[in-house]
């Protein structure tokens, strides 16, 4: 029997896991990284953030070319070679994942391909193609991530009923695509397929789509989607699906009306579930919450003192950068830093067209928690830059502490919102006030000016908006 000893073992090679492994190795730890898939990078790299963004970029060209006609520059209708598109996308993944493998090697992080399973609180059994290996560890970091949830009722074994993983493979362009779930994954994939020419119907059980974000930020996205999608149905419920020839027969209820419709493909994007159900956690003291996510303390430590957990598998906002941040917190604790980690804000970006990005306190959260705030909004219709590329539906807003004028939240809708939100994160984390932001010169003409001008709106003296004096 094969037994290896290591200081730190990391289970899962996604943005949480590899970040943890690298950081620990950089601090002199002997690290083993266990990943069941042949490629490192996890969901994010292989079937999440990166491929979805690649496809969004590629298909955005189609929309752009069409839009261009009204500006006097016309193109012929595009032809889409799906194989080539897929190959290009996979090439990116390949490159990135090789990059990560190279980084692991250079840091002396040993990667073992296999499935990790805890025999007890200090032993990880790794099931590889060549058989089992036993890893005795001083500390383990669980970063096994999550997978799309596929409710039993939809799990017919029909590959035309897809999760995001399947949708990213773009096997074909379905004529009619049903997307179940109006979260960001559904919206992003809907954007891709609509651009490729599918008639997209989106069904959401709640009263609105993209429920985490402020309504005013979501509105331009909905307006746009209502144009490019066939239909968006909120407060609608899919009850049943059945295979009918090469199509799926879907039963749903909408507006108190039962409907039965045929779709060529269905994308189920109704949430994600943690990957920790079958990895021997019952042999340890690790505890799960009632939704099956691993419970951790402020330092990412589970109930089992030698085992930490980070990323999607502990729930919360399931985003790659959250996983990477948590990786550092866990490793810092492993390295002997016993301080309670400083709180941090996690920005969120929805890469639809237009994009939505926000960070810190949202207006709806403030309302819900009864926190008094002041809100300053700058409409992009007043931005020269936005006008110059024909996208004036955007908006930049600041959520402010009414007394100190400190920036508590930033919300942006519009192309490039995802790039711009980083400035909001820095401002909030630095404890900046609206005045600080207003006093920083922003380059012209750029969208970044809208942040400065939103701050100026607060003082009633934005150059490009006439607004009543507030101070």
């Amino acid at each position, binding site marked *: 029997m094969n037994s290896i000893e290591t200081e730190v073992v990391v289970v899962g090679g996604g943005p949480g896991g590899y970040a943890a492994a690298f950081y620990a190795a950089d601090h002199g730890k002997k690290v083993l990284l266990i990943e069941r898939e042949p490629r490192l990078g996890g969901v994010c790299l292989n079937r999440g953030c990166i491929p979805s963004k690649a496809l969004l970029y590629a298909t955005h060209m189609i929309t752009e070319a069409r839009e261009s006609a009204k500006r006097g520059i016309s193109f012929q209708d595009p032809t889409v070679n799906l194989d080539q598109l897929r190959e290009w996308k996979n090439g990116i993944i390949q490159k990135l994942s090789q990059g990560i493998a190279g980084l692991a090697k250079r840091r002396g992080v040993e990667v073992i391909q296999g499935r990790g399973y805890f025999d007890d609180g200090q032993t990880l059994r790794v099931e590889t193609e060549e058989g089992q290996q036993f890893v005795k560890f001083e500390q383990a970091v669980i970063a096994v991530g999550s997978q799309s949830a596929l409710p039993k009722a939809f799990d017919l074994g029909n590959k035309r009923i897809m999760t995001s993983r399947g949708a990213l493979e773009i096997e074909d362009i379905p004529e009619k695509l049903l997307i179940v779930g109006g979260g960001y994954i559904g919206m992003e994939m809907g954007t891709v397929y609509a651009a490729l020419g599918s008639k997209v119907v989106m069904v959401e059980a709640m009263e609105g789509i993209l429920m985490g974000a402020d309504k005013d930020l979501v509105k331009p996205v909905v307006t746009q989607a209502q144009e490019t999608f066939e239909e968006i149905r909120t407060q609608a419920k899919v009850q049943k699906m059945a295979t009918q020839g090469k199509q799926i027969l879907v039963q749903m209820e909408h507006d108190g009306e039962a409907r039965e419709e045929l779709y060529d493909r269905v994308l189920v994007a109704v949430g994600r579930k943690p990957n920790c159900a079958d990895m021997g956690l019952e042999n340890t003291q690790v505890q799960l919450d009632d939704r099956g996510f691993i419970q951790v303390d402020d330092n990412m430590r589970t109930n089992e003192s030698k085992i930490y957990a980070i990323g999607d598998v502990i729930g919360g906002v399931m985003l790659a950068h959250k996983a990477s941040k948590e990786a550092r917190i866990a490793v810092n604790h492993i390295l002997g830093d016993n301080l309670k980690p400083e709180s941090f804000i996690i920005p969120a970006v929805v890469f639809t067209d237009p994009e939505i990005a926000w960070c810190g306190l949202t207006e709806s959260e403030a309302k819900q928690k009864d926190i008094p705030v002041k809100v300053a909004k700058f409409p992009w219709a007043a931005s020269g830059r936005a006008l110059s590329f024909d996208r004036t539906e955007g908006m930049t807003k600041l959520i402010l502490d009414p007394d100190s004028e400190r920036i508590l939240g930033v919300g942006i809708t519009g192309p490039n919102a995802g790039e711009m939100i980083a400035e909001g994160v820095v401002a909030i984390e630095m404890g*900046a006030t609206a005045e600080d932001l207003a006093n920083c010169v922003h380059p012209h003409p750029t969208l970044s000016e809208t942040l400065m001008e939103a701050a100026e709106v607060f003082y009633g003296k934005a150059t490009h908006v006439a607004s009543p004096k507030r101070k």
Partner: protein
Amino acid sequence: MEVKLPNLGEGAESGTVVSLLVSSGDTVEKDQTLIEIENEKAVAPIPAPAAGKIGEIRISEGDSVSVGQVILILDDGAGGGDSSESSDSGESSSQGSKPAAPASSGSAPSGGGPRPGGMPMAPAPGFGFGFPQGMSAPAAAPSNLPSLHDIWIPGAVVHSADSSAAKAGFSPPASPSIRRTAAELGIDLMKVPGSGSGGRITTEDLKAYVGALHQAVEVLMGHLQAMSAGPGAAPAPEKPKPKSIDFSQWGEVKKEPLSSLRKTISRRMTEHWNDIPHVTQFDSVDVTDLNALRKKLAPSYKEKGARLTMTPFVMKALVQALDKHSVFASSLDEATQELVYKQYRHVGIAVDTEAGLVVPVIRDVDKKSLLELSAELSEMAEKAKDRKLSGDDMSGGVITISNQGAIGGAHFTPIVNKPEVAIVGLGRGAMQPAVVGEKILPRLMMPVTLSYDHRVIDGGTAARFMVDFVEAFKEFNEENSAA
């Protein structure tokens, strides 16, 4: 009734019992002196707060006692036992069971003795801290200790748990690196006032807070040590232990312990010398005519019970110069980086006593006549000699005069009496050849020196001050100097 050691003024927290004047069973009058305490500045008589019969005496001569400590029990006939003195600082039933526990200062006797004054602000670089009202002295139990919450930076914003930011779960405004440093230091940023926009905490704010915390802790430790140290315990050591030299190897020696006054002088002088960049300016005043005037007026002063010396003239000349150069009556507030110009003209007079140097302060010199000043000077000198100066008697000066004229010697370089920024040193007037007009004449010349704090005052200013000060001596005449 428990009689406790009252506040001794000027930040003195403890003293040594030099004489115990009553014994158990004695009947005493109100204000009769019970014991004498040699505190850091003088010997203070501690009077009986009420008439009555002395019960248990809880101290003996030579004991070190701290403010608030119970000295003795006085049966004042009020039938009150322990309960007759109550204060709002939380001492209660445990009083009786812990005889040595010092209690709050709420029990300072009225009349006679020094009145409890506020604890002076201990200046820390860029910072200050204060004690809540009514806590001018150490309290009985640690739970009564002043809260470190009271640390403040002037002008900075104190964070509120009620702010929208706090309600939304944000920590006080500070960069991640500062938040991290605070966490490493175990500091709750909610308590660190921020001087940046919107109350943002800067590195300087954090440093200042840590500095003040450090200082507050030292003061508190001093209190605690004084409280827990039993009778006879020495004051806290200030430096790494110095090594003794065995001088007897070279001949016979005799040893004498330092008095607490000597220790205080030693500590303060070191402090002042280290803190203040000193410059000393030299000059001489022709006091030939003034001395003649003094001699002429002396009898009329004597008739009124006062002895006219050179000092009141010097004081008058000095306040005149101060009016022209008010910076010499200022203090540097290190906390706010402000100069505080004092509009009053209290002048400290260094008095050489058998036990050492003390500096009583004569108030409002500008408003008093030479006669009043003369009277007050002899009264203070008397008190100093008897070591009966109170803390109040020795605080509040804006500048100090150190006059060695009566003893001898010429120029010397006095040390500035912090927080004052200047001190005037006078030597003995002596007949000297002086050039007057075209002639060389024998004149009575008085050596004058001026040491000043170069942080606050520059050389040019000092020279101008000296010129005006010397000039002011010429203005005395029979009319304006008569008793």
